[in-house]
């Protein structure tokens, strides 16, 4: 099923759709307050864009600098060209130390690589420790948002999930009660873990260290207890200098949730005492995107989720309607770049309203990319013969004004006389929820010509 069908299902529950829309709009409004409270907001965005553009253009240089500096600090650096290599490296590192219990903090990259099922098949227990991610993990679902993974769930549903898996009181869905229960549950997992995996928000070339931003402190707890810490990082997470970091941390938290800063901004520049810190640098299709001028800006993304919160389509269709790891506008362009055939409906799950491009802290031209991806869909022959033919015929008519005039005239004559049963038959998709416009007697052109003749 493509986005239109999945969206229609989500919309069918009108109450829930509006609840979802309002929850995300609330986050968007919080972001607006925070963004409008900083006079330098627009210049911060511009600087962020320039740093990203510069870094992506010289990515090979900065990646090597990062590797060199990280190694000097005693960190291990691995390179993975795709998801498979990434997952194999993680497994090997775990097996080398005999680790069996992995605690993970939020990492969309490992979602993208489908790491959890791979490790589980190989006998590793993987526990997502971000509260939202743990909820969806227990339910065997994918995150529906990159910052708010369980935003599609109501507290009653979380209560039921915890009742089943964490043995909480029946029908108790008090958020504080449930959070405490999750905390007890996760504490035990943290204490028993023998390895941790985190994502990376920023890799600093100049220092060779990585920075992880969370609100729950789960990355810190996870990586401080076990002796093995693996950090998975997409190649685009590099920034050149430590002093560039504040530009992004100021933008990130405000754009994501309207906070001035994330509760924890943790810098990892050395392993814990007697432990190992491994950084896996992952490509998985990113260098192909860099090679395409139309889409390379999509690698400027800092995963704040603002474009998702602002998207009027996402808010009314939910993250699962996209069928790609990252939902919403940025996910639609990344998904289309990655696998156009599978994700061919995503560039069209958009009205081109351009709210995303204007909310984006890195000033990514997201909506222009979706517009361009549509052309790729057509050139790949994936639009569907019917739609393409209709537009081809329409174009032909538009090149023949007399024909258009004639067709319009006939339509204005005939349509008003048609019975409703024919006019609103199944083929009239417009008419499912809307009346057709009232057809006038004359076109503007006819009236204009009459007027000119009278002059």
């Amino acid at each position, binding site marked *: 099923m493509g*986005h*239109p069908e999945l*969206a229609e299902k989500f*919309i*069918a529950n009108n109450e829930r759709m*509006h609840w979802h829309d309002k929850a995300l*709009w609330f986050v968007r409004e919080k972001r*607006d307050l925070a*963004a409008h409270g900083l006079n330098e*907001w*627009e210049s911060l965005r511009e600087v962020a864009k320039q740093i990203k553009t510069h870094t992506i253009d010289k990515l090979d240089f900065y990646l090597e600098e990062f590797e060199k500096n990280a190694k000097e600090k005693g960190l291990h650096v691995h390179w993975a060209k795709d998801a498979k290599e990434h997952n194999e490296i993680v497994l090997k590192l775990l097996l080398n130390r005999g680790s069996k219990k992995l605690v993970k903090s939020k990492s969309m990259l490992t979602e993208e690589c489908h790491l959890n099922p791979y490790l589980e098949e190989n006998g590793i227990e993987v526990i997502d420790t971000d509260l939202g991610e743990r909820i969806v993990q227990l339910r065997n679902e994918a995150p529906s948002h990159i910052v708010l993974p369980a935003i599609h769930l109501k507290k009653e549903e979380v209560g039921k999930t915890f009742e089943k898996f964490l043995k909480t009181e029946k029908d108790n869905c008090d958020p504080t009660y449930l959070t405490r229960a999750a905390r007890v549950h996760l504490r035990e997992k943290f204490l028993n873990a023998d390895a941790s995996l985190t994502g990376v928000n920023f890799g600093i070339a100049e220092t060779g260290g990585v920075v992880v931003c969370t609100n729950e402190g789960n990355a810190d707890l996870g990586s401080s207890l076990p002796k093995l810490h693996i950090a998975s990082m997409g190649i685009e997470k590099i920034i050149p200098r430590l002093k560039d970091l504040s530009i992004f941390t100021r933008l990130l938290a405000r754009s994501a949730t309207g906070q001035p800063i994330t509760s924890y901004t943790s810098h990892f520049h050395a392993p814990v005492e007697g432990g190992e810190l491994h950084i896996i640098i992952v490509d998985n299709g990113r260098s192909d995107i860099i090679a395409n001028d139309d889409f390379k800006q999509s690698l400027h993304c800092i995963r704040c989720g603002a474009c998702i919160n602002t998207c*009027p*389509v996402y808010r*009314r*269709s939910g993250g699962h309607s996209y069928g790609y790891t990252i939902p919403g506008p940025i996910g639609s362009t990344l998904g289309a770049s990655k696998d156009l055939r599978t994700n061919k409906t995503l*560039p*069209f799950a*958009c*009205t*081109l*309203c*351009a*709210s995303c*491009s*204007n*909310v984006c802290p890195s000033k990514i031209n997201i909506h222009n990319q979706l*517009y361009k*991806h*549509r052309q*790729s869909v*057509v*050139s790949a022959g994936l*639009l569907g013969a019917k*739609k393409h033919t209709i*537009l081809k015929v*329409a*174009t032909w*008519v*538009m*090149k023949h*004004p007399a024909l*258009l005039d004639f067709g*319009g005239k006939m339509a*204005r004559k005939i349509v008003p006389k048609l019975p409703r049963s024919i006019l609103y038959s199944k083929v009239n*998709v*417009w008419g*499912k*929820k*809307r*009346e*057709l*416009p009232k*057809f*006038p007697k*004359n076109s*503007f*052109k*006819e*009236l*204009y010509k009459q007027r000119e003749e009278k002059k």
Partner: protein
Amino acid sequence: MRIGLFIPCFMNELYPEASMATLKVLENLGLHVEYPTNQTCCGQPMANTGCAHEAGELAKRFLKIFKDYDYVVAPSGSCVAMVRENYAQFLEGEDGFEHLKTHTYELVEFLHDVIKPTNMNASFPHKVGIHNSCHGHRELGMASMSERNLPAFSKIEKILGLVDNIEFVTLKRNDECCGFGGTFCVSEDAMSAAMGIDRINDHLSAGAEVMTGIDMSCLMHMQGIIDRDKLPIKTLHIAQILAGES
């Protein structure tokens, strides 16, 4: 000053009043306007569906018809955005394109930026909600966007404010999309309708009697919902208010 009037293809066929009102607004201001009758479509529906070849053919046609005018004016933000933002892919370097691109204006934008009228000689004693349709809003910059931290302004409110007795309502979501989106309105029809209903309800709860805007396509979509659901509000193209119609 030679002004070429571009009337979007569907407006020509279905909305002769709004089209005529556009002509009247310009003529009432003493401007000389020509309507080249061999014009059809700017190619936007094709371009937004990814049919670059087809869109390119229509872009070339548009250039040929309109390149010799001092200004091209159209009662549609999205068609003008097509010319200004998206034609380059098809017409870059063509003779007259640079001029066309920089001299094609949406009606209200043309009044605001070029003609600068101080009076419209029109009265509209109603409570009006402005629908900031996206392409005009975010591509042409008709008003400040809620996403950005820049000084607030609205060209639409400024020009409409010249009409006597008009009253504006305050919306909860000032610049949310109505869900028309070109072929989106049929390819994602459930979503499109859901977005449209939400937009109309915002105007209704703000007490608007009339929803107006610079894009007939968004208004056509929402009027379709209003008619189906028999809602106590109506849509009217901005040109009709500016021309003193009601």
